[in-house]
Structures are given as C-alpha cells and as structure tokens.
C-alpha cells in the first residue's frame, strides 16, 4: 500500500461513523425525505390552483424543482457543513486543522459528510423520474447529456456557493446565518420558474448567485421553450461555467478569509 490520501481516509471514516448509528441515521434520512416532500408542497398547492406558472406546466415546473433540489441536496451532502465555520471559530478547533500538513479547505470539506441528505436526493430523483416522461423532452442523447451537465454543473454551483458562504463567515461570525440567504435562498430561488421573478430578482439570481443556471435555464433548453428576454437557449448548458465563476470568487474569498483569520492582511 502506498501513501494513503489524507482526505479519503477522513471521509471514509466519517461515512463509517454514520452507518454505525443505524437508528438515528435512518430517522435522519426519513426527516430529510420529509423536508424534500414539504418543499414540493408549494409546487403541489400552486398547481392545484393554476395550470401554468411562469409559462411552465406542472410537469415542467416539477422538473425545475427536481433539478434544483437534486443538485442542492448533493452539494449539501458533500460540503454543506462548510457554512458552519463559526462553530470551529468559537471552539478554536480551526487551529487544529491549521496545524496539519494539508489544505485547510480540503480538510474542512472532508471533515464531514451528511449522508442523511440522501433522503432529499431521493425525493428529487423521484420527482424527476415521474415528471420527465410527462414533459415533451425527447428521449435522446441530447436530453441525457443536458441532464447530466445540469446535475454536475448545478451541484458544482451550490458547492461553490457553500465555499463562498463559509469564506464570508470568517468575517460574519455572530451573523453567520446571513449566508443562508445565498445557500438556502439560492436553492429556494432555483426551485421555481424564474420567469415569475421581477427583473432585479431574476438578475440577482442569475448573475450574482447563479441559481437560474441550475434548473430553470436547463429545463427551458431541454424543452425548447422561450425564456424571458435576455436568456438565449444555449445558457441552459452553462451551469458548469457558472460554477467555475462562483468557484473562482469563492476561492479568492476563502483565501482572503484565511488571511483575515491568521491576521496576514485586512
């Protein structure tokens, strides 16, 4: 056996630890299924009253919901704990990470994994599987490629948003919950057809927190639907690019945050 990867060893250990408390793990998964279902309740209640919302019918809207929830839950599962940085700051445990010969972000990202989020992933997948055949999406390779791109890109977008949220918490500390507006707020905004948003809101959730790239724009592209002005069809393929941009900003913010913490610059 060669040198073991430090990150993989820790991650594997976290996974084992979660399975060792089977009953509480199961109840956490069930609770997360309930979270997913309750999020869907809005779509359900709204479409019990209307046939379309923002130009999408119930199955098309369900597809937006499913993609947004799937990608957010996957990102939350992997790195959602990054936005709990203040706990480390208050307990002083961040120093322990800094005293090890590995990257701080890498260590923090792999310090936890929330497999209970699989409950929410499951709900999103179920909605996706039920809704997809009921839309006009052609059953071809392009559809598959677009869905994979959107899933990978969307997960990356939210993962980068979590890193950014963690970075901001170096400064926020006591007001750390403010980042919920970009993490959970981003996920919330991504779940609905952005065509119902007034322009400033849609602009903010496209170019500041790229929530519309995650689900709404890919679904428009998938179904060949016209979007609001200024959203050409190829934008639906662009969530990986959006993720790169957020990741770049998040990376810079993280470095600045660490420098702020260690007092290297202000």
């Amino acid at each position, binding site marked *: 056996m060669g040198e073991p990867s430090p990150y993989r060893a820790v991650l594997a250990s976290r996974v084992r630890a979660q399975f060792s408390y089977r009953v*509480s793990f199961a*109840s*956490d998964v*069930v*609770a*997360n299924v*309930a*979270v997913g*279902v*309750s999020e869907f*309740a*809005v779509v359900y*209640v*709204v479409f*019990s*009253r*209307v*046939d*379309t*919302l*923002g130009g999408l019918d119930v199955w098309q809207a369900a597809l937006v919901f499913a993609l947004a929830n799937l990608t957010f839950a996957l990102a939350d599962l992997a790195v959602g704990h990054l936005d709990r940085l203040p706990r480390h700051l208050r307990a002083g445990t961040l120093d322990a990470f800094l005293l090890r010969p590995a990257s701080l972000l890498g260590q923090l990202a792999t310090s936890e994994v929330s497999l209970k989020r699989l409950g929410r992933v499951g709900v999103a997948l179920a909605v996706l599987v039920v809704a997809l055949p009921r839309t006009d999406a052609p059953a071809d390779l392009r559809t598959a490629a677009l869905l994979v791109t959107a899933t990978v890109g969307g997960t990356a977008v939210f993962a980068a948003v979590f890193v950014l949220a963690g970075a901001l918490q170096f400064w*926020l*500390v*006591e*007001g*750390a*919950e*403010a980042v*919920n*507006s970009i993490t*959970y*707020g981003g996920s*919330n*905004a991504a779940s*609905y*057809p952005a*065509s*119902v*948003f*007034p322009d400033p*809101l849609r602009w903010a959730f496209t170019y500041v927190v790229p929530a519309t790239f995650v689900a709404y724009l890919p679904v428009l592209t998938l179904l060949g639907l016209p979007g609001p002005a200024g959203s050409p069809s190829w934008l639906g393929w662009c969530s990986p690019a959006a993720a790169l941009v957020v990741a770049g900003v998040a990376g810079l913010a993280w470095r600045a945050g660490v420098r702020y913490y260690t007092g290297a610059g202000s």
Partner: protein
Amino acid sequence: MPTPYPALLVAGFRRFSTYRAATAAGALTNTVFGAVKAAVLVGTVAAAGGSVSGYGAAQAATFAWVTQALLAPVAVFADDELAQRVRTGDVAVDLARPVDLQLAAWADDLGRAAYTVLPRGLPPLAVGALTTGLALPGRVDGYLLAVVALALGVSISFGCRHLVNLSAFWLTDVRGLTTLYTVVATVLTGLSVPVGWFPPWLAVLAAATPFPSMLQAPVDVLTGRVAGAEALRVLATQVAWLGAVLLLGRVVLARGSRRLVVQGG
C-alpha cells in the same frame, strides 16, 4: 408576593437582544425568501387570471412579506434548547426552581417574540412596501386585534414547540422529531402558501391542527382578511387551541418529571 413571570418575560427579551448580528442576519434571509415567495405567489395569481381564493396580486404579495415578517416572532421552526437540558439532566435544576416550568418558559418565549417583532419584522415589510407595495387596512382596531392574535399565535407555537422538546424525556434523540415538526409546520402554518389555497384534503388536515392558528390567523387579522365578528371567531379558535396545547403540555411535563424522579435522569 409579586409574581416572577413578568420579570422572566423581560429576561427573555434581554437574552435575545444580545444576539444583534444574528438578528440582522435572520432579517436578511427572511427578506430574500420573502422576495422569492412574493414573486411565486403573485405569479400564481397572474396565471389564475387575477385572483386565487380572494387573493389579488397585492394581497398575495402582502401575504408573502407579512408571513416572512412574523416567521421569527412566531418561531415556526422548532428549537431544541429544552430538549438538550432534558438530555443532559440540567432540567432537574429548572424543576427545582420555585416557578412553574411551563409558565416560566412561556414568559421567556413571549419576551423573545417581543424582541424579535421589530428587528426581524420591519426589514421584510420595508422591502415589501418599496417593491411590491403592501395592502394593509387603514383601521386601528384591526391592528389592536392583530396584536392579540399574534400573542396568541406565539403562545400556541410555544405550546407545540414545548411539547416537541418534552419528548426528550422519552426519546434519546429529538433531532428527527424537531425536523419533522419544522417541516409540517412550514406547510400547515401557511408559511409557504396561504392555507386558503390548499386543496380540500390538505385544508381539512390543516384545520384539524393548531398550525394555522399560529401564523395564518394573525396574518389574516393583520391584513384585514378577517374582521369584526369573523376576526373574533378566529381569536376564539386560537384561544381554544392554546388551552388545548398548554393543558397537554402540563400533563406531559408532569409525566416526564415523574419519570425523571423515578429513573433518576
């Protein structure tokens, strides 16, 4: 001898007034969610041709902002402060105090709610007023009733959250239950969508629970959706639910503390 509960209420207010940055952060998040909710609800009204169950575009937007404003005072989401004290056994200290645990916690929670009303409520309302506008009635008596309805809503919410926490006397881990409670409350209080928009089966289910009395009721009174005799009927329903949850809370607390005494934590 003076009753200690007003002092406990003030202490609850003070306790929460120290979390200033957290309060600002919460207000920001409430506002962002409010903007998305207003857009979705207004979009729904537009898709329905201008009205859903008596909600026009202005009413739908107002509903979105007011529910976000009252989310923190009503505390729709469950906490686990008391459950932790039960788990660690610290609750024995609380039970040994010469005050009634339930009444003391209630007073503390009302103090918390009183503190959060303005800092957590005004930002979403201000943004709402500036963006979509707010459709609020002009009569003063409605607002007075709304204060009563809000106090009742907070109290019912307290009663239910207290019950969730008391389950820690029997459950080793209350996390699953608090998450489930929060999930159910998010939908059935009307936080996500007005209760009046629910399809019949869900409306029946909601009406059989205290949840609509926590948030939808004070919002209805505040926005003038219900007024006069109908408003009093809403308040009467709230009072009935409050009595029921507090009574149940007393029974559960008595059983739980007996269990604590018998089994020694």
